[in-house]
């Protein structure tokens, strides 16, 4: 804007404030003194070109065109005009037999990707017959012990019919990867025929989610082995999704969560660089799982800002030269505001969250089921989660133009503000010595805990509105009739595992497990020996036991708090 034009606009604004705004505020004050977002940024009454001028906004440099650096508007030139995002369905409960039925129905109604929710014993490397697994088998996800369970789970669902297939596999990613490779073989497919997607981001488990097994440093190596293996053998796979979601959910706020997640990613990348990989060989294999649930517009701008941050960090700090290394592929999960009272309202909340992520230009999206807050989703609810995305993708023109909100004074100002916050936070973690240091010195956890306490205070003061719960409440009874997992299922799964142990070649299992041990003690990549063990029907628990013997187990420090003393 020319100086003359900007002066004129300033005058215009002053006149408006005096003649129009002033009297309006006098007769009808605003509902609050300040409108503050969860990330601490204040939302202004109205945004104009003057705001952009104030932040030194430059269209070419800050925004540019989709598919070109710094990728603010999107990672491809045509975005959803060519192909909508991948519609993921996150699902899993009970044993593989029951769960297979659910998967078939989800694929039937058009889910592009099955994301296996696996139960807690599986996530922390215990077989279903382990003492610690009691009462937990098949509860928060499906129970998986061996390759046999995968065969049953994907019976009638060829992996190449899906756009991607996924499991979290945060603590034991070489096993997760191997289970998919071996399952593909059983279905007559080679890795080039299908696409595997893993979360495989262990560092956030130590601060936000708790499904760790081994101490931090060996865990980084286990994580990196999977990424390194894919870099050589399956470059079209997604071996690591840097996960801001759980860090935000735990309390950090979306900006810090994204910065921590990226810092965690830099830790894996540097580990791989030290082992001889080139940055352009590994960076394109990473993606990020972003999350902002408190504010619709922050969610949109968060995605735009994070693409720019990623592009800059990869190019300027990590020395990437391939544009593929600079394009951030984003996964998002539409959830986080659901209430137990009047759960049907959650359909609306989830839809709005999904719309924000779509306007933010994500690649992979999954919706919560509206009844998930009550327990395992019912079939009908899981279907609505898929249908909601299909409606967004194919009705009402939402996907017809790329980055439809780009250029808005508000959106561009907010995007730049968020970008600045994220970069500052990354610098802070880098200044401490990176992600591992920030875990060990307690910085991550204190940021999370402070945020969680702040959110709870806001909730207690009635500032965090949940319609039908904290405001306009009419119901007093929690809904009943939650979906139940058959309690006999646990025993059936234990018997299935016993059957596999009886039928497999025990000698071969022992031999392959010994090879896993040897490689774990040395410098090699864990995936090849783990794949051999998985092929021989070694169980997840057995493989993890070998690794536990080599690496030990992570012991979290006990936390004791009392008035006047915070441990």
């Amino acid at each position, binding site marked *: 804007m020319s100086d003359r034009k900007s002066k004129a606009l300033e005058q215009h604004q002053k006149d408006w404030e005096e003649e129009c705004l002033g009297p309006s505020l006098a007769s009808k004050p605003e509902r609050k003194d300040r409108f503050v977002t969860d990330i601490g940024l204040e939302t202004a009454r109205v945004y104009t070109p003057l705001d952009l001028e104030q932040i030194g906004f430059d269209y070419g440099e800050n925004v540019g065109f989709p598919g070109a650096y710094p990728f603010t508007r999107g990672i491809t030139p045509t975005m959803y005009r060519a192909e909508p995002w991948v519609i993921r369905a996150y699902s899993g409960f009970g044993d593989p037999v029951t769960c297979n039925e659910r998967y078939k129905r989800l694929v039937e109604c058009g889910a592009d990707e099955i994301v296996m929710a696996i139960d*807690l*014993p599986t*996530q*922390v490397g*215990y077989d279903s017959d382990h*003492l*610690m*697994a*009691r*009462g*937990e088998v098949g*509860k*928060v996800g499906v129970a998986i012990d061996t390759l046999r369970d995968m065969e049953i789970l994907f019976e009638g669902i060829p992996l190449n019919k899906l756009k991607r297939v996924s499991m979290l596999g945060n603590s034991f990613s070489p096993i997760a990867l191997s289970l998919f490779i071996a399952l593909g073989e059983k279905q007559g497919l080679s890795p080039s025929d299908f696409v595997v997607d893993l979360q495989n981001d262990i560092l956030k*488990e130590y601060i936000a*989610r*708790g*499904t760790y097994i081994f101490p931090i440093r060996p865990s980084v190596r286990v994580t990196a082995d999977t990424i390194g293996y894919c870099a050589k053998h399956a470059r079209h796979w997604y071996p690591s999704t840097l996960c801001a979601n759980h860090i935000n*959910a*735990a*309390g950090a706020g979306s900006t810090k969560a994204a910065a921590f997640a990226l810092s965690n990613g830099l830790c894996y990348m540097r580990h791989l660089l030290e082992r001889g990989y080139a940055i352009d060989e590994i960076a394109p294999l990473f993606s990020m799982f972003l999350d902002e649930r408190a504010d619709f517009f922050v969610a949109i701008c968060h995605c735009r800002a994070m693409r720019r941050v990623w592009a800059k960090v990869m190019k300027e700090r990590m020395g990437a030269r391939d544009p593929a290394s600079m394009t951030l592929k984003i996964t998002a999960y539409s959830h986080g505001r659901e*209430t*137990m009272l009047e759960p049907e309202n959650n359909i609306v909340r989830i839809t709005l969250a999904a719309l924000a992520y779509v306007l933010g230009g994500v690649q992979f999206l999954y919706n919560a089921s509206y009844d998930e*807050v*009550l*327990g*395992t989703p019912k079939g009908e609810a899981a279907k609505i989660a898929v249908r909601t995305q299909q409606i967004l993708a194919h009705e009402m023109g939402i996907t017809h133009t790329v980055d439809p909100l780009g250029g808005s004074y508000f959106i561009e100002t907010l995007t730049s503000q968020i970008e600045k916050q994220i970069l500052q936070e990354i610098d802070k973690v880098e200044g401490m010595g990176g992600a591992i240091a920030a875990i060990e010195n307690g910085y991550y956890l204190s940021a*999370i*805990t402070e945020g*969680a*306490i702040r959110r*709870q205070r806001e*909730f*207690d003061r009635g500032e965090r509105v*949940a319609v039908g*719960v*904290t405001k306009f409440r009419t119901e007093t*009874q*929690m*809904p*009943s*009739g*939650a979906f139940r*997992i058959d309690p006999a299922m646990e025993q059936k799964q234990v018997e299935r595992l016993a059957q596999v142990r009886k039928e497999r070649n025990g000698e071969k299992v022992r031999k392959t497990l010994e090879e896993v041990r040897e490689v774990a003690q040395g410098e090699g990549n864990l995936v090849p020996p783990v794949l051999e063990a998985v092929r021989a029907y070694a169980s997840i628990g057995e493989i993890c036991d070998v690794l536990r013997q080599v690496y030990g187990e992570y012991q*979290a*420090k*006990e*936390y*004791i*708090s*009392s*008035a006047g003393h*915070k441990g």
Partner: protein
Amino acid sequence: MKRKRRVLIGKVGLDGHEVGARVVAKALADAGMEVIYTGLRQTPEMIARTAIEEGVDLIGISILSGSHMTLLPEILKILNRYKADDIPLIAGGIIPADDIPVLKQLGVKEIFPPDTPTAEIVDVVEKLIASR
């Protein structure tokens, strides 16, 4: 001098979601109680033992993994076996409405769903301890 009220906040089973437990621990500490937080992955046995060894006045369990119908009754059983069933047990987390009367029947004193104001939890804890 009157002994400070002591509370054990625990995570039982494999559930790793700690936010609720930490926030409640902080609220109770702010209300003047001494709070012992167990950290993750405790067995019912470990919870009961810690509670007895530390001489707490109340046990609060956070559980979001759906295994409450196995693990909470197990804690009660072990407390009973150690003749420590006078220590009140409360729980919070994702617990379906249908399970609440069953658990209360078994001896769980109170169950807090998500979205419970912390003041309400502090209030109930104080009353339970006072009525011991």
